[in-house]
């Protein structure tokens, strides 16, 4: 057994080292793509790796190919290996910067502010646009034939409009419209509109062009880009509102990055596209163009001052209009915000590094008194209902006629359980929105229409079908490699979980461990199990940075919690006879576990492990959202871009992969039991 294990470990070690070699030799191929090669700075003493974070505001497949030459140039100029990390969500990137696994990143203004505040970042450069401008405007867009003419038309708040908002951390898509349109008028978009959906700029533009939403937020940068890349979509959009100008995006490094690295990065950003032969400059321009960058300019944290100001304006308006605040609270809050505003206007940039203090907490005020009294009334009614129900059930279960008597205690217990189930269902009815379930039938046609988006535009036309087929094939070729990564994440996540769940599962089984061990271990497993993988992944991003490893660890922790519970339940259900049989030979408790407990539960444990592997393959898709890689990342982008045919391709890959894993594990389970 030992020999076998050591062989397995040797092979694993070999595999790991081979994988490491492959990873090291990988990026070397891409250098030299750029054409520009001015190595003016001396080579650094040691070739180190800098991790460069990029927020995916567009579909990530374009993103990676667009950024690749830029990254190569950056590597060449700085003499460092620049490792790009893409995430479609800000939270993961900021977390990664905070814990130093990302040293430099391209942020938007608002997420950049969070990165400076929370992530230990510092602005050192900013991008400009290809035309040399240093800013952009937020816009509101409507379909070209929409009756909406001005921003006033949408602010009637008659609940007829479907509104496409930006990501809550997006400056132009969320913060600017909030600060300049909604906050000054005291309007809450979620109440004003029929629906408010958060998506990225491209998604909003496509949605508006297709009439899926009535109004969307966007910005001038993206509109220009759209005119160039997708003129058909741009032609179907009309701008109804333009905001005051907002500065370009900041490039942020960690404040504690060493001087040499800072110098080299500064050198690259300030000289790229400016220095060298005319051909080299032209080549650099070609690299920058698809990224919609002109040249870079030096900048500092002061870059974010207008954003801080925006934020304060927003908080100020919200504080003025918040109905939950008492007059006194309102006064204090407004006064504090005014003071901060004055300070920022006076040029006190130190405020950036402070937590947003007064502004951010206003929504979490204590619940007003009326609400709690209503709750009392509701619970009173519930209690009454419970008692009536209980009596009814008790009466119904009363023994009549011949037959054995059921003890009263048992009848009461059964009635309590039955009444409890009914009450829980009733109690959840409203909150789960079940009263609106008739809409499922009423609006079945709308669902059909939506689902039709996943299929060819015109199923009767051969051309449309061919195009659809090509879209699907393209989607497959993109999704399959990502699906494989996802499955690999699930494999390691489950493997680690199974190994840690064995001791935890045994220690939380009442027939193996004493109660004072069982209880704390079980509570710990409850914690593991109840925390969402996404949250656990954020914790691990702090240590290992963005990427699949954080996903693996998140799955491992969560699954350990689940498996330990299942494992311990299997252990508690074993036949105690064999355990006693082994004990009677004079064996130690450890031997009883190894020789009598584990052989009995092994088939069930394996089955649970395989089952969790199946569900982890599904869960791993979600982890892509925060930059843990795999198929989830492209799935969410496709969904956000309303690109349903691409979504269809990805979903098909997921379904096929999950079914295949399912079948395989069923076969294995049959073999093992």
């Amino acid at each position, binding site marked *: 057994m030992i020999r076998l294990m050591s062989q397995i470990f040797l092979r694993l070690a070999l595999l790991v080292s081979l994988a490491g070699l492959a990873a090291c030799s990988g990026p070397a191929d891409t250098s030299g793509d750029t054409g520009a090669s001015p190595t003016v700075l001396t080579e650094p003493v040691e070739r180190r790796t800098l991790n460069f974070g990029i927020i995916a505001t567009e579909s990530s497949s374009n993103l990676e190919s667009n950024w690749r030459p830029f990254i190569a140039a950056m590597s060449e100029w700085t003499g460092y290996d620049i490792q790009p990390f893409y995430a479609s969500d800000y939270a993961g990137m900021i977390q990664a910067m905070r814990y130093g696994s990302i040293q430099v990143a391209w942020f938007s203004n608002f997420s950049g502010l969070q990165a400076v505040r929370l992530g230990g970042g510092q602005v050192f450069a900013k991008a400009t646009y290809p035309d040399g401008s240093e800013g952009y405007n937020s816009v509101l867009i409507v379909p070209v034939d929409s009756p909406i003419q001005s921003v006033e038309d949408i602010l009637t708040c008659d609940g007829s409009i479907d509104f496409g908002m930006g990501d809550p951390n997006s400056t132009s898509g969320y913060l600017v419209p909030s600060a300049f349109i909604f906050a000054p008028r005291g309007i809450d978009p979620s109440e004003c509109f029929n629906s408010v959906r958060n998506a990225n700029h491209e998604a909003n533009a496509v949605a508006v062009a297709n009439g899926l939403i009535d109004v969307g937020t966007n910005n001038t940068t993206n509109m220009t880009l759209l005119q160039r890349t997708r003129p058909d979509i741009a032609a179907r959009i009309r701008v109804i509102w333009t905001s005051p100008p907002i500065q370009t995006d900041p490039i942020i490094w960690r404040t504690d990055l060493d001087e040499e690295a800072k110098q080299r990065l500064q050198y690259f950003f300030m000289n790229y596209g400016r220095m060298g032969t005319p051909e080299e400059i032209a080549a650099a321009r070609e690299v920058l163009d698809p990224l919609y960058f002109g040249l870079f300019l030096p900048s500092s944290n002061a870059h974010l001052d207008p954003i801080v100001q925006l934020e304060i304006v927003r908080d100020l308006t919200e504080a003025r209009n918040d109905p939950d605040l008492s007059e006194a609270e309102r006064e204090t809050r407004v006064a504090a915000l005014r003071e901060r505003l004055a300070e920022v206007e006076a040029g006190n940039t130190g405020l950036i590094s402070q937590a947003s203090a007064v502004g951010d907490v206003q929504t979490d005020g204590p619940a007003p008194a009326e609400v709690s009294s209503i709750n009392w009334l509701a619970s009173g009614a519930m209690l009454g209902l419970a008692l009536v129900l209980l009596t009814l059930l008790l009466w119904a279960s009363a023994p009549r006629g011949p037959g054995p008597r059921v003890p009263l205690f048992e009848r009461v217990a059964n009635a309590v359980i039955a009444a409890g189930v009914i009450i829980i269902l009733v109690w959840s009815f409203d909150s789960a929105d079940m009263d609106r379930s008739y809409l499922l039938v009423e609006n079945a046609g709308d669902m059909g229409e939506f689902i039709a988006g996943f299929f060819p535009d015109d199923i009767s036309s051969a051309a449309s079908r061919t195009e659809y087929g090509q879209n699907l094939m393209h989607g497959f070729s993109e999704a399959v490699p990502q699906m494989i990564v996802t499955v690999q994440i699930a494999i390691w996540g489950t493997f680690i979980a199974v190994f840690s769940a064995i001791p935890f599962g045994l220690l939380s089984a009442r027939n193996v461990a004493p109660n004072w061990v069982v209880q704390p271990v079980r509570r710990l497993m409850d914690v593991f199990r109840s925390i969402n993988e996404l949250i656990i992944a954020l914790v691990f991003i702090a240590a290992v940075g963005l990427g699949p490893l954080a996903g693996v660890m998140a799955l491992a922790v969560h699954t350990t919690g689940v498996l330990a519970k299942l494992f311990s339940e299997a252990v508690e259900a074993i036949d105690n006879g*064999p355990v006693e049989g082994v004990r009677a030979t004079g064996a130690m408790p450890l031997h009883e576990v190894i020789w009598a407990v584990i052989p009995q539960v092994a088939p069930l444990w394996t089955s649970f492990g395989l089952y969790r592997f199946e569900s982890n393959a599904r869960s791993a898709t979600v982890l892509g959202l925060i930059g843990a890689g795999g198929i989830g990342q492209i799935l969410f982008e496709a969904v956000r871009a309303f690109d349903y045919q691409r979504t269809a391709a990805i979903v098909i890959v997921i379904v096929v992969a999950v079914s295949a894993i399912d079948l395989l594990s069923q076969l294995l389970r049959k073999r093992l039991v």
Partner: protein
Amino acid sequence: MTDAAAALKAENVRMTFGETKALDNVSLTIEPGEMVALIGPSGSGKSTLLRVGAALQVADTDSGPVSVLGKVMQSKGKISSGVRANRARLGFIFQQFNLVGRLTLFANVMLGALGRLPAWRGALGLFPTSVKQSAMDALERVGIAEFAGRRASNLSGGQQQRGAIARSLVQGAKVLFADEPIASLDPVSARKVMELLRELNQTDDLTVVVTLHQVDYAQKFCDRTVALNKGRIVYDGPSDGLSREKLVEIYGPEFETAFHGGES
């Protein structure tokens, strides 16, 4: 070895389950080399006595000591500290065989050596050749060596019970406690198991204490019979001294069912 020490010595043993007195001040001494049957109706305490003797169950706190081969197994409701070493010299046979179903018969029999192997060897399953040899010898001895590679759960009841006996042989047990060893077996297997126990008693000088439901088996295979009723010893003497009157006294008027397993 302590030849002089009794194979089993129980002194004023008490054991209560709730209100029921399973063992009510029982004192009993069994000498090495004896083959003793424990009989009595269900709930008379005969199984409890064996289980208390192997310290698989803890007796009451006011109970006297129980010792096997001169070593105290438990006393006053506390299991002795060296109980594992003492258990290793005592084979225990269960009504439900208690082999580990998913392990091979061979592996099950080798488990008998766990008590005397270093812990790490036992944990990793690295049994030395000598143990493997003694396991095969034991299987040969009980006549089921050909099934060594089969999973225990795939064997018949009689084969499993003989496997359990083989496990005791690998333990090197000097005393064998058999708790209803034939109650779950068909008559032919039952007879074979009893013959095996008798043979081990006669040729290896193994002390055998066996609880039985059927008095005829006690009379046929055991020299001495101890009868219990409601936790008290009501008869202790030669098996053929059990008169009809005595049996009626032990089992009540329906004692015939106990005599032939309900067949006649």
